[in-house]
């Protein structure tokens, strides 16, 4: 069939592979973050990454190399700010997020020459992903999912109730630092797929859709993973066929999945 010829293109295959890997990772982490009422952390870290990407471009260093450590440090900072100053989680995220964008805007204004490059990170460009980036995305996503599977019991316990988990012997502080690092890694990888502006959508929407249907935690993880991968595969295809931006198309598909799952739950209750 001619309509499916695009599947033979290398850049489409690379987009499918990297997109599915990053979507799986984001979905699994997303369920954990949403249940811990940290949905906005993706937004905060992606905005910090925006500042870091600008810094990378400003210094002439590969931007994602700067964004990754900065995002990890920012995630620790959010945790420490929340714990030490007894700020609400969303207030700590808002502070870090605003500072990240401010740094990015100041650097972009100072340099003036890299606005086009910075713009590509803002909205992502999965169809332009290189083979090296695909390999990194798949390897890192797979590794992070293995770590989450290994820590599954502790993560589930701490997500349900941190204090009860602590009394059961879970090292909650250490676990929170690990989760913060994994979230930062996931955000930086997802920037290439959907861009800084839409990263949190990839973390949050599949998770929220899954929570409309799931009866158990494991069930929620599986549904979120299916929704996220489906949205990326269909989003990339539609984007190619209709010439729409891939990142935004992926987000809109996620939104329609959410509406469907919410409607299903609502009608079932009625």
């Amino acid at each position: 069939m001619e309509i499916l010829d695009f599947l033979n293109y290398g850049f489409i295959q690379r987009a499918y592979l990297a997109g599915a890997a990053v979507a799986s990772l984001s979905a699994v982490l997303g369920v954990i973050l949403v249940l811990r009422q940290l949905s906005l952390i993706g937004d905060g870290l992606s905005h910090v990454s925006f500042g870091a990407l600008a810094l990378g471009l400003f210094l002439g260093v590969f931007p994602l190399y700067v964004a990754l450590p900065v995002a990890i440090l920012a995630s620790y900072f959010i945790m420490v700010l929340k714990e030490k100053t007894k700020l609400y989680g969303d207030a700590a995220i808002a502070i870090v997020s605003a500072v990240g964008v401010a740094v990015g805007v100041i650097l972009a204004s100072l340099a003036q020459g890299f606005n086009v490059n910075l713009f590509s990170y803002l909205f992502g460009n999965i169809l332009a992903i290189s083979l090296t980036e695909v390999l990194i995305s798949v390897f890192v996503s797979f590794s992070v999912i293995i770590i989450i599977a290994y820590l599954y019991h502790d993560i589930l316990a701490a997500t349900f109730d941190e204090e009860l988990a602590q009394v059961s012997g879970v090292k909650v502080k250490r676990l929170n630092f690990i989760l913060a690092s994994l979230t930062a890694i996931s955000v930086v990888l997802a920037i290439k797929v959907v861009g800084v502006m839409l990263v949190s959508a990839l973390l949050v929407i599949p998770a929220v859709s899954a929570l409309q249907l799931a009866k158990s935690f494991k069930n929620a993880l599986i549904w979120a993973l299916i929704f996220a991968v489906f949205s990326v595969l269909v989003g990339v295809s539609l984007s190619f066929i209709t010439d729409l931006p891939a990142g935004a198309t992926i987000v809109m598909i996620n939104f329609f999945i959410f509406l469907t799952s919410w409607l299903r739950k609502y009608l079932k209750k009625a």
Partner: protein
Amino acid sequence: MEIVSVKNLTFAYQANPVLERVSFTVSSGDFIALAGPNGAGKTTLVRLLLGLNQGAQGEISLFGKPLAKFSAWSKIGYLPQRVNKFNPLFPATVIEVVGLGLKKRGSKNKEAANKALDFLGITSLRDRPLTSLSGGQQQKVFLARALVNKPELLILDEPSTALDPESRHSFFSALKKINQEQGVAIIMITHDSASAGSYAKKLLYLDKTVIFYDSFKIFCQSEEMSARFGGFQHLICHQHQG
């Protein structure tokens, strides 16, 4: 065997004294009702025992080890006061929640979770979402979670608040069975004088410091306590004798 030892424990919250020179010990098989007025420091004391609050002066030892070096948390089961304040969106089945109390997962441990449900007579709830249960049923699920590792010490913070009279009776009967048949020591914070008098063996009355700590029998015979507590002593001792 001494499983909890507290010596001269003093704790203040933002310069307000909460506990002052609290000392007591708990042995295997004890069933202690921890009573006292609001703000007496009961929940703080329990949280300090569990390492959930930091910054106290004095010594706490659990199973012969200083709290800072204690790591055998599976020996302790904890049922907090706010069990019904968990995230209502959390998609967890009863068996998942009970399994959360386990140190590690595995088929043997899964069996332990099933046994805990069986012991409390709630096996039929096994695959139900936690949010679909009544307050009393949820309380029993959390008790099963606290029991899943077969602890030697059970700490309960006002466990009867969400229970109707019928559920309260079956809940406390289960506690008595755990204490008598399995020798599990129990520390139970309670405002429920009737239940405390009926089921516990000892009374630890706290009002920032330990006012009374001994058996109910001694409390009920003490003229000093009668002069001090009057109605409270009458109520709790009436139930105890009954």
